[in-house]
């Protein structure tokens, strides 16, 4: 790949998806785009870049999808789901006792393992959530992964990564080497295509946002913008879950780390600009 091709792809991916490809991640282009080039009967990446330059939309989407699709697994890192079960949900059950509803957003759901893990946690809590309306909204940039997510179909390899065997037996149906999630768990998750670079205020307010292992691919300004916009749609007592290698520290003061739950962040109500709209709303109401 020539330096000019690399620069073109770097700018193209930054503009389209926010993906910030540093020079040392050059290998990612080779490993992700070579299979796409082969599928299109092209000899290699230079020819693929040439086609992208000539501007056909389906191919441009395919390139973005190939570069942004990341491997994921059920209950990834385990800890965030322990936090969810042990503290986040129990606290919100108390705080939302009068309205009896919970909204959770998985901001980069990839092939569905994260939102379905959350759905299984909620299902396992059973009685405690009886009579509650729970919504899990799962979004991703890639249409291909969303289609796979909706199907609830997973290979034997995928169901063995992070999914406790008891939950596999309880919530999946086996067909040879393919396992399908039961319809009741699938029905708990709504999948939608969404680019985090664009406005997402239409999604409404959430009690919990999982935005894990996606911001690592963005540059600092993009991360800050996304954090600030998430803050605006997270309830003031809501929770943000980030990936194990991610933090808000040094980027924004709209969130502060939970004192004991690693990877969980709270709205920083002393400093957060996100409380400004609610204060102005109150002022508007008071003066109306």
């Amino acid at each position, binding site marked *: 790949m020539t330096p000019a091709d690399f620069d073109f792809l770097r700018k193209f991916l930054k503009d389209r998806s926010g993906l910030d490809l540093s020079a040392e991640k050059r290998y990612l282009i080779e490993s992700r785009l070579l299979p796409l080039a082969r599928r299109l009967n092209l000899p290699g990446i230079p020819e693929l870049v040439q086609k992208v330059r000539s501007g056909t939309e389906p191919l441009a989407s395919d390139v973005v999808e190939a570069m942004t699709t990341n491997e994921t697994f059920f209950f990834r890192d385990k800890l965030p789901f322990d936090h969810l079960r042990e503290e986040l949900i129990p606290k919100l059950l108390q705080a939302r006792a009068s309205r009896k509803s919970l909204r959770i957003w998985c901001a980069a759901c990839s092939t569905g393992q994260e939102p379905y893990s959350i759905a299984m946690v909620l299902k396992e809590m059973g009685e405690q959530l009886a009579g509650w309306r729970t919504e899990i909204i799962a979004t991703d940039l890639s249409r291909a992964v969303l289609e796979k997510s909706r199907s609830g179909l997973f290979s*034997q390899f995928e169901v063995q*990564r992070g999914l406790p*065997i008891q939950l596999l037996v309880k919530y999946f149906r086996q067909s040879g080497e393919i396992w399908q999630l039961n319809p009741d768990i699938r029905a708990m998750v709504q999948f939608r295509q969404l680019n985090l670079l664009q406005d997402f205020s239409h999604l409404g307010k959430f009690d919990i946002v999982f935005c894990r292992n996606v911001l690592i691919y963005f540059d600092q300004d993009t991360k800050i913008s996304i954090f600030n916009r998430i803050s605006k749609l997270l309830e003031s007592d809501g929770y943000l879950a980030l990936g194990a290698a991610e933090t808000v520290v040094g980027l924004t003061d709209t969130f502060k780390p939970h004192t004991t739950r690693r990877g969980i962040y709270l709205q920083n109500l002393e400093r957060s600009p996100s409380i400004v709209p609610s204060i102005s709303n109150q002022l508007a109401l008071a003066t109306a």
Partner: protein
Amino acid sequence: MKTCLVVDDSSVIRKVARRILEGMDFQIVEAEDGEQALEVCKRGLPEAVLLDWNMPVMDGYEFLRNLRRMPGGDAPKVVFCTTENDVAHIARALHAGADEYIMKPFDKDIVTAKFHEVGLI
């Protein structure tokens, strides 16, 4: 260092498992069948057992039932690792006291995830 008993009649599988588990800082003891594995356990219980199902002399299911009846035999974390990949076998293994279940073929990521799941790492 924790000890893992690898029970499989295939020397190839034992070798692959040894390589993966040594990379996870386990000390490895090998057995070719359930009876040999029980002898090992009588001399000293390991922290973990990676267990095949179909083996000559004594299969993995029988070994597990015997292990769980031994004094202190409920302590080792037992992870089945087998080509018996259907729900009926999995349910039977769990009923007999297995902690986790790996369906062959497996790789390092799967073994790591399962050992993490049962608190061995």
